[in-house]
């Protein structure tokens, strides 16, 4: 009986939001926003603010460069610098519709978007993968007009209330917490509110990834013999904090000195060759070859990337010519790199190591096996295994 009373006394999260924001909850149908949408729309979206500038390496090859010999050499000697693997993921749900009063007695309904965000890092030592770090949080995105005053500090206060809630207490010990709710804008344009909220949660995930990288660097784990491989693109837009002053910008860049990004999927249209988009050039990339490195920079932001492509699986064995190709990115950090591009030997070595990651595969367990590398796949499985089930998550609201 006591248990039942306790359950009844628990206040649902939507109730707290309703009370705190002064909206009116419609207790709408709760559902996942992940299933029917391609992740490409959010996660792998090319940021057009960066564009092709020039060749991005010290000794650019004329065309494709074979790394088969080098990769076999490195494999035989068990040489390895790819030690850490990072993967972030999120599950986003629409959990409520909330009405906020407008002038003239009207009210407008905005969806409440909530997501589970998890970022995990795994470490490879003696060919065995073990977990290194993990964060898990619940991120809520509500319209910015939920804050009636707009003076700041409102969402922080709301997050305190949410973290004190009795609903959370039962999963708190597993490390779950609410982050500060992120408002999405409500200006009128063609984008759906759900997508705006999802995009903000995606942003939150990227921020979390950056924090994890920072933490790893601070603990002195990354160096020339221990690289971090991040799943997905590194083409971050600098946030306000990163670009704040020169010092934090330098810190940001330093953090990424020993990090490479590996993208499973990419927009073929943004594959550049000699300044022009040339998807065919990438599609024809022979097995165990890499493309020359391209230097991507931005007029608006002081960041530059080295980008190249590596084919790890034969075209005959995959569904499309772009399967089996990985896009490799590295943020250019040192001054000489920004000037002359990345050292060709480093590119060859990293590419050869990426080629060696082709085995083992996750064939049968993941349809993207041709583009997945096994340590990242395991990291992803690890992070996803730590999620709350959709039912348990939706019951919070």
């Amino acid at each position, binding site marked *: 009986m006591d248990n039942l009373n306790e359950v009844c006394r628990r206040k649902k999260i939507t109730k707290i939001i309703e009370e705190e924001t002064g909206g009116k909850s419609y207790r709408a149908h709760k559902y996942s926003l992940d299933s029917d949408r391609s992740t490409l729309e959010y996660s792998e979206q090319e940021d057009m603010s960066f564009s092709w500038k020039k060749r991005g390496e010290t000794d650019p090859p004329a065309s494709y460069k074979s790394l088969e010999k080098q990769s076999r050499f490195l*494999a035989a000697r068990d040489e390895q610098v790819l030690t850490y693997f990072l993967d972030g993921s999120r599950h986003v749900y629409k959990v409520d519709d909330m009405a906020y009063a407008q002038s003239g007695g009207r009210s407008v309904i905005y969806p409440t978007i909530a997501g589970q965000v998890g970022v995990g890092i795994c470490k490879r030592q003696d060919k065995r993968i073990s977990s290194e770090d993990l964060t898990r949080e619940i991120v809520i995105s509500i319209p910015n007009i939920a804050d009636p005053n707009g003076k700041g500090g409102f969402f922080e206060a709301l997050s305190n209330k949410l973290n004190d809630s009795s609903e959370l207490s039962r999963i708190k010990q597993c490390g779950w917490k609410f982050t500060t709710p992120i408002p999405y804008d409500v200006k009128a344009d063609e984008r759906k509110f759900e997508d705006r909220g999802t995009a903000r949660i995606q942003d939150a995930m990227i921020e979390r990834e950056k924090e994890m990288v920072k933490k790893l660097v601070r603990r002195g784990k990354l160096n020339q013999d221990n690289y971090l491989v991040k799943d997905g693109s590194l083409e971050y837009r600098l946030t306000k904090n990163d670009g704040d002053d020169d010092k934090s910008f330098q810190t940001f860049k330093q953090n990424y000195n020993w990090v490479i990004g590996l993208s499973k999927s990419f927009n073929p249209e943004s594959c550049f060759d000699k300044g022009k988009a040339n998807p065919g050039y990438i599609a024809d990339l022979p097995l165990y070859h890499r493309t020359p490195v391209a230097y991507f920079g931005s007029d608006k932001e002081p960041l530059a990337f080295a980008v190249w492509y590596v084919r790890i699986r034969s075209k005959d064995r995959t569904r499309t010519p772009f399967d089996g190709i990985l896009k490799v990115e590295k943020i250019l950090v040192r001054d000489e790199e920004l000037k002359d591009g990345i050292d060709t030997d480093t590119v060859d070595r990293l590419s050869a190591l990426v080629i*060696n990651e*082709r085995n083992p*595969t996750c*064939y049968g367990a993941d349809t993207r096996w041709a583009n997945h590398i096994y340590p990242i796949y395991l990291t992803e499985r690890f992070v996803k295994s730590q999620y709350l089930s959709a039912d348990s998550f939706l019951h919070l609201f």
Partner: protein
Amino acid sequence: MNPQKLIGRVLATEKNPTTIDEFYFWTNVETKLNAFDIVRVERDGSDTYGVIESISHITDATSFLTNFISSDFGDVGVIEPTFRVGMNFAKAKVSYNTKGDYTPVHNNSKVSLATQEQITFALGLDKVENPVVCGALKMYEGTGDEVTLPVNVNSKFLLGSEGAHLNISGISGLAAKTSYAMFLMKSIQDAYALKNDDEDSIAFVLFNVKGRDLMAIDCPSDDLNENEKNEYRNLKLSCDPFSKVKYYIPYFDQTSQKYSSYLSRSDVDSYVQSGKLKKFKYVYCDDKESIEMMFANVDDPNQTMEAIVSKIIDESDSDFKGLKTWGEFLETVSANSQKGSSGSKGEISVLSWRKFKRIVNKAIKNDDMFAQRVEFEKSECRLSDELKHIKKNEVHVIDIAKLPEDKQAFVFGDAVKTIYNLKLGEYDNEHNVTPPSRIVVFIDELNKYASNDVPKSSPILRQILDVTERGRSLGVILFGAEQFRSAIHKRVTGNCA
């Protein structure tokens, strides 16, 4: 060793639930375990023990194809930078719970190695009454936690009165069957040597059927190293050879070319000098009753051979009464098999007599063993006389290795018959007959005498069946060894441990 060495956790899934009599648990890939190792699972307030039945290794590869593709579609030389995630899981049969709680063990329960005391306890080895060491058990072999413990058997189940007889089968050439039988008998001899109880005493009769296998069991072994000696000590067994051993070999004339033992002549001489070897002879007037044993493997559907044998041992038979030697016997048989010979052949046809003659001639003629009389002062003897006088803790080894099969059967049958009669009390009124309460008869290659193919009328089979079915109560225990258990008459194996 660490008594709490944790090696894994119990797994219970919809597909593979834990049940009253089995459970699964995972272990690290590096953890070394063997089938039949015992593990301990903690429960609330009690411990459940399980015997490992099988160990499996799995990875996250969903099919064989995954692994094939992971080698660049079949490149055998590929070196992977990451090991596939894998684990071992073992299936264990529940053997015991300390509080009799056999509800299934819970998911994620701790699984650890057991200590020596716990293993003894789990297998119920601590409660064996009348213990006789029958072997040793090694657990966690090849790991730092290796445990060796002696295994005892209740001698009442091995030697009577609760159960008796032992049958060992296995493939040839591993030196395991005979050696194990020796080990067990040595252990029994050690155990009984300590007793001084005439009501509960034992003696052994061994048949040597191969080379000189059993012809030196009273000599200490030279190849026992310190480790092995330690193992014996741990089992509380002595490393000494058998004591009170007497050897019997078929008699042969010193001048004769025929030589009926694999023992070298010099060994025979030295054995004779130390008084532990005698040569046995068969004398017609004392041993004619055993003639039937020569027909153990002869098909006799009309029982004519049997009829002849009973005619021979009939004291009032007109032809055979009063015969004293094998020579006279053979002559009489010859006479009977003459065409149209007179005499009381009556219902027995000449053809049967000829068959009989063929068989006994082959066996008896030109064999020194079948002699006129025994010269006791020359270390000669009659086997059944010796067996009659077997004393407690004695080991009699009868060498029949070099005899042809029909005569092996003859000697064996005669000896078993004597032992059986001895225990039946037929010789009780003779002088100096004090049989021990139990006599163990060990015969290698039991299939020669008690196989499914032996004619049903075989007198030896009859003897063996008598021993296995009624010997337990009399105190005659059969230890047999052979390659295939299935070859042995099921009325024999049915009574064996």
